């Protein structure tokens, strides 16, 4: 089949991002030709500011060099501007006469700076701030001249002024509005920012209208005259008074434009579905964006559509702003102006240089603006985008993430918003030993924008994940507004699919999908058999939704669940037999001791889960040691699985002078009931005989505390990476009720949670009220959940006993070369 022809006009950030995404999905679908008016590959325009400020150099900011185009078979016409689109013949023509035909056309022409229509605007020394050429012109001017005037005190103008000051110029910023950055800041914040910029030597003329640019004797610009007659010396004038979507080419092809090329949710122009537009030149639902993050969202959807998937829709973005001037922190997001129906929380410390305003609407954070201390910007932005109910944390909200979460019992060592203050040598990821400098370097040099990319390139946050918050902050402070954090479960499961966990679960239920291949077919997976991320998730969703009907696929399980033991760093395994409720007997201990000696187990350890771990067993010995343990009546402890782990107990009323309930007895009953339960993540329970709580029920997925009149049930606790105190669920009277309420809660979790979501994260997502409504308040539903759980767990086999039998046991043995001759009757070796 002949390839289709895709032509792209505009070789900038949004366009090339679209191509990158397209090549990922459908590398061979199109012959791609790119026209770019600038004589370069694709570079990171955002970083022109650090280049101007002397913090980076041009080679640092290249995203795709010429080799990239060649390696991907893309024809690049760099330095050539497209001047005509012929929609009837489906061709484009460049200024040098080159003509290329297209099947699909992608317009990514960005914006053009708005040049004030004043006399003198064409004088040498008058420039805009948009591209490499402008930046080079400014650097050059700073070497030979002294006075600069920047017109416009928006983000761009201030970053330009800052850079020029650092390069030794005297800079005055002329601004029409009453305060600087008025589109991003309120007056109080702007005043504070202005004061700190003035302290750096920046001068301001506010409410000032430029009347004329005057030439010096040299013929170059020499001064700016304002309407009130003031004259400002200026050997360089930078116009930063706004940008306009670059639409002249589109308009000449009679594509519908109004402040941008009007596009649909699939980024196709409303006039001609063969023609797409992404980036600053596009107008989507009335908005033309001017920051990278939303443009990258557009790029993804557009690439999907070009690749023929057609599922993605772009629905608009909320944006945030960050000024990249070293030492001056400014952040704003969402609706920060407020209005009659909004509340404001304001902190204003003039002397300390800190201003923060939070705008609340209907118990949600609608916007935030901050100067001086912006460490919590990323967190506030996340709250704005997620539309999360903040009523409960309202009192603390102003004091930031770490304080608020500590007040909500949510401490733990996640990113405390201090990332920007940390030195480059600070270790961020304890698991992989990655320090801040390495992360910042990778972000800058490799042009990374998302958490996933940072994980892939640096390994930071790719193991236990407790540093994710910090890494996100480093991203936010390094790439500014271009960073967009995303909720892990709001994104596709992995690179093999466009679908989220929620969509996959729903499809498996609705379409009664029973196998992984069927699910992949039904949901149009882009890889033949998935990857190590999606397959385990699919396997869990299938077996939990359709117990006894769906096939369990061991090859789609992580090795621990396939070998029914924990893999160790040297490739050996650990063996943890179940000790129901933490109870054991002399016979069991003797059998464990014998097995440890017989199989030369190097380490025998009491675990944190009240049982014994035999560490360092050879894989081929596993079936043998299991057989010995089985013979003594012991079964697998599932210490390796996303499954029921342990039910810890205290001695309880059986022995303890304070005990109010038989904790050990109930613990054993619960553990027997839940034996063999696969779950989205591991599940741990505890039963304590009284509120002294010696079994630590307060940090368990389900914690039970005996009181005189019965039991208190707590759920969604976690003692791991980030300690979460379990929340009170309900009070019940009998053992049977503990089993029913606790079991129903766990079944709800099994049915609704996403793979690798612990109960605390699940409850954080759906809300405790949701679980209470379905389990505590609705008796019929509770019983139905409980029955579904018991049904799924009926006759749960001991995996150790199962694995010891042929042919499964073969998977534990190496292929034995020496025995092969015997088995096949003769020693066959052929020379090659």
């Amino acid at each position, binding site marked *: 089949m002949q390839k289709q022809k895709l032509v792209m006009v505009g070789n900038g950030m949004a366009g090339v991002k679209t191509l990158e995404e397209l090549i990922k999905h459908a590398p061979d679908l199109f012959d791609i030709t790119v026209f770019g008016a600038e004589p370069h590959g694709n570079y990171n325009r955002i970083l022109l500011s650090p280049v101007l400020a002397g913090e980076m150099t041009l080679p640092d900011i290249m995203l795709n060099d010429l080799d990239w185009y060649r390696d991907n078979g893309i024809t690049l016409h760099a330095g050539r501007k497209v001047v005509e689109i012929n929609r009837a013949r489906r061709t484009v023509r460049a200024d040098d006469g080159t003509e290329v035909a297209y099947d699909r056309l992608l317009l990514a022409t960005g914006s053009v700076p708005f040049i004030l229509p004043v006399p003198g605007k064409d004088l040498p020394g008058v420039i805009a701030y948009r591209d490499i050429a402008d930046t080079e012109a400014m650097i050059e001017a700073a070497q030979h001249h002294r006075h600069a005037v920047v017109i416009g005190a928006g983000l761009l103008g201030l970053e330009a002024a800052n850079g020029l000051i650092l390069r030794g110029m005297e800079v005055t910023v002329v601004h029409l509005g009453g305060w600087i950055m008025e589109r991003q800041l309120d007056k109080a914040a702007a005043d504070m920012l202005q004061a700190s910029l003035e302290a750096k030597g920046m001068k301001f003329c506010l409410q000032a209208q430029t009347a004329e640019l005057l030439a010096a004797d040299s013929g170059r610009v020499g001064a700016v005259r304002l309407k009130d007659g003031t004259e400002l010396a200026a050997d360089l004038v930078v116009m930063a008074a706004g940008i306009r979507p670059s639409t002249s080419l589109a308009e000449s092809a009679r594509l519908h434009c109004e402040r941008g090329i009007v596009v649909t949710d699939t980024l196709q122009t409303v006039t001609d579905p063969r023609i797409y537009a992404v980036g600053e030149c596009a107008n989507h639902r009335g908005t033309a964006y001017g920051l990278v993050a939303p443009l990258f969202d557009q790029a993804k959807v557009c690439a999907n559509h070009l690749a023929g998937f057609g599922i993605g829709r772009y629905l608009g973005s909320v944006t945030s702003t960050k000024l990249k001037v070293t030492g001056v922190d400014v952040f704003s997001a969402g609706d920060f102006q407020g209005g009659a129906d909004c509340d404001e929380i304001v902190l204003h410390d003039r002397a300390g240089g800190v201003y923060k305003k939070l705008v609340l609407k209907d118990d949600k954070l609608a916007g935030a603006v901050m100067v001086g201390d912006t460490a919590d910007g990323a967190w506030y932005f996340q709250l704005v985008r997620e539309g999360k109910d903040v009523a409960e944390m309202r009192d603390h909200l102003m004091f930031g993430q770490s304080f608020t979460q500590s007040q909500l019992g949510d401490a733990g060592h996640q990113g405390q918003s201090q990332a920007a203050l940390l030195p480059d040598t600070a270790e961020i990821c304890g698991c992989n030993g990655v320090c801040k400098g390495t992360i910042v370097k990778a972000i800058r040099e490799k042009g990374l924008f998302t958490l996933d990319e940072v994980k892939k390139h640096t390994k930071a946050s790719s193991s236990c994940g407790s540093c994710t918050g910090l890494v996100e902050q480093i991203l936010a402070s390094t790439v500014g507004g271009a960073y967009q954090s995303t909720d892990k479960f709001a994104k596709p499961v992995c690179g093999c699919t466009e679908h989220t966990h929620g969509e996959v679960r729903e499809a498996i239920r609705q379409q009664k999908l029973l196998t992984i291949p069927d699910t992949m077919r039904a949901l149009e997976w882009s890889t033949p*058999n998935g990857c190590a991320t999606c397959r385990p998730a699919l396997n869990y969703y299938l077996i939990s939704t359709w117990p006894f009907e769906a096939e369990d696929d061991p090859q789609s399980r992580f*090795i621990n669940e396939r070998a029914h033991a924990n*893999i160790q760093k040297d490739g050996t395994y650990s063996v943890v037999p179940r000790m129901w409720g933490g109870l054991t007997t002399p016979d069991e201990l003797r059998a464990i001791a014998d097995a440890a000696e017989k199989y030369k187990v190097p380490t025998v350890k009491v675990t944190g889960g009240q049982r014994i771990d035999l560490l360092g067993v050879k894989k081929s010995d596993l079936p043998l040691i299991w057989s010995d343990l089985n013979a003594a009546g012991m079964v697998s402890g599932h210490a390796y699985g996303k499954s029921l782990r342990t039910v810890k107990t205290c001695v309880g009323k059986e022995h303890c002078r304070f005990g109010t309930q038989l904790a050990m007895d109930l613990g054993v009953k619960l553990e027997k009931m839940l034996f063999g339960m696969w779950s989205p993540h591991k599940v741990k329970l505890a039963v304590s005989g009284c509120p002294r709580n010696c079994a630590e029920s307060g940090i368990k997925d389900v914690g039970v505390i005996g009181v005189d009149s019965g039991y208190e049930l707590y759920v969604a606790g976690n003692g791991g990476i980030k300690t979460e105190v379990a929340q009170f669920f309900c009070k019940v009277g009998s053992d049977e009720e503990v089993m029913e309420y606790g079991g129903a809660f766990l079944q709800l979790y099994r049915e609704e949670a996403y793979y690798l979501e612990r109960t605390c994260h699940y409850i954080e997502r759906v809300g405790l009220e949701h679980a209470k409504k379905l389990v505590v308040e609705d008796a019929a539903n509770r019983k139905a959940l409980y029955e579904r759980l018991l049904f799924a767990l009926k006759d749960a086999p001991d995996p150790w006993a199962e694995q010891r039998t042929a042919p499964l046991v073969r998977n534990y043995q190496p292929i034995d070369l020496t025995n*092969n001759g015997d088995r096949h009757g003769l020693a066959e070796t052929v020379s*090659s």
Partner: protein
Amino acid sequence: MAWQKLCPLEEIPALGARVVEHADGDIAVFRAAGDSVFAVADACPHKGGPLSQGIVHGHKVTCPLHGWNIELASGHACAPDEGCVRNYPVRIEAGTVWLEL
């Protein structure tokens, strides 16, 4: 160098692997997508993890220890990781797997 007979193909689990013990170190023999077979040293270029124990997808395996992805045909780690593991010639003949050592 000689071709050694290993085992019938079905004695290696589909999308799985088994190990051949060898004086120079274990060799992992994979049965990947489409019943294609590959053999590489059973030691991940990262920190020596047993690749034979990883999840197999397409013609790649994900190391069980820290999740590197390895191309089975070439032994190369997938970008952005860098490294390479030795690979061995392997083939199927009349349903039996052979390995050249």
